[in-house]
Structure formats: C-alpha cells, structure tokens
C-alpha cells in the first residue's frame, strides 16, 4: 500500500537534487575559478536520473539520482575585460575573460520544470493518500 507513496517520495527527493544542481549553475554563472582555486570557468552540473526498482513494488520503480555530472565539454564564453585579474594574457583571446557558458534562461526553464514535476508528484501522493483513506470506508 505504501510503495506508491515511496515512489512519489523518491521523485520528490530526485527533483530536489536536480533543483540543487540548477541553483548551483545559476549561482556560478560568472564563476571563473574552479573548486581548486585554479582559473577555469565553472562547468555546469547536470543530474542523471535512474529508475530504482528497489523503491517500488509490483513492477513499478521509483527514481534515484545516478550521478551529478559536470559538463567537461562546454566551451567558455569569452568576454572582453582586459582589466579583469583573470583576463587571458596572450594568444588570440588576449584581454578576454573565459566565463562559463551557462544560459540563465535554460536554467530557469529547467528550474520551472523541476518545480512542476515536484508539484505533480505531490499530487500523486495526495491521490494515494485519498485512496488509502477511502479504503477505510469499507470497514466504517
């Protein structure tokens, strides 16, 4: 009876993790140093979901976060800022600063999608709860 609740909850947790990654991408939209402090534009993180039959029952599966991966292929977005401490000193991009190529619009669309998915799963929980309570009416 509770496996439907568990499945919806696993989705809530997964969407929340996804929102964390999106928040991180938005927060680091102008970050020019990596975690080690080296000058490298922030690599946007993307969450990979995986079906998780361990949560469900009767063939239904929950969802879990398989990995949060950094986009290592992404090309930086160059912005001409010769006075910036991270400006490139020589080469064709002299005077430019390498910023992460994160599109705020896309990130916000993803955030909205995560919020709607969260809402949908809350709706599913509501329905499951209702069904459990309606069942009690057989006895009452």
């Amino acid at each position, binding site marked *: *009876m*509770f496996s439907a*609740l*568990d499945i*919806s*909850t696993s989705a*809530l*947790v997964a969407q*929340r993790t996804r929102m964390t990654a999106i928040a991180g991408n938005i927060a680091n939209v102008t970050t020019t140093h990596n975690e080690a402090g080296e000058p490298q534009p922030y690599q946007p993180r993307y969450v990979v979901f995986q079906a998780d039959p361990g949560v469900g029952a009767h063939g239904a599966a929950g969802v879990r976060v398989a990995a949060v991966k950094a986009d290592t292929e992404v090309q930086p977005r160059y912005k001409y800022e010769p006075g910036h401490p991270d400006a490139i000193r020589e080469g064709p991009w002299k005077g430019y600063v390498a910023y992460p190529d994160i599109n705020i619009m896309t990130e916000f669309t993803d955030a909205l999608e995560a919020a709607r998915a969260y809402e949908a799963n809350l709706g599913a*929980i509501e329905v499951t*709860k209702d069904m*459990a*309570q309606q069942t*009690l009416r057989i*006895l*009452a």
Partner: protein
Amino acid sequence: MNAIGPMRPTGIAPPAAGLQAKPGGGAEGFKDILLQSVREANALQQEADAAVERMAAGEDVTTAEVLTAVQKADIAFKLMMQIRNKLVQAYQELQAVRV
C-alpha cells in the same frame, strides 16, 4: 463451536480446552490479528519518529522523506484503529448473544 474459537480474546477467561484454537494450526485469533496490525502501525510510527528526530538534530534528511514517513504512520494507525473497532464490535455482538 469451533467456528467461534478464533474470535475469542485470550486473557479474559481461561477457555475450555476443546474450544481453544489450536496453536500452529493456522488459525489466527482475535488477539493475533489485532497485535499484528498494532505492530505494523507501531513500526511505521517508530520509523516516523526516528526520521523527525534526525531532521530535528539537523542531519541531512530531506523533508519530503520525513513527512512521508509521518503520513505512512498516520495511515497505518488509522487502518489499525478501524480493524480494532471492527474486531471489538464483532466481539461485543457475540457477547450480546443470549446463551
């Protein structure tokens, strides 16, 4: 006479040997059914308590998981209460039977 045996609550009066449900014979008594549902509800309640405690202690648990645990405990408790009500009602109806 054996048909009402399983509904007899133990601990109220020592049952006559012939009326007792045979232990291990697959027959579940009034007490067993009630106890089982109480145990299930209790286990979920303890799970919910532990989850709430972890959240209050500031551990890294998601609120969704905690609230789901609480809700599961609530549903299990309601179900347990309904089963209990039904069993007690059946018992009382039997008691009202004039011998």
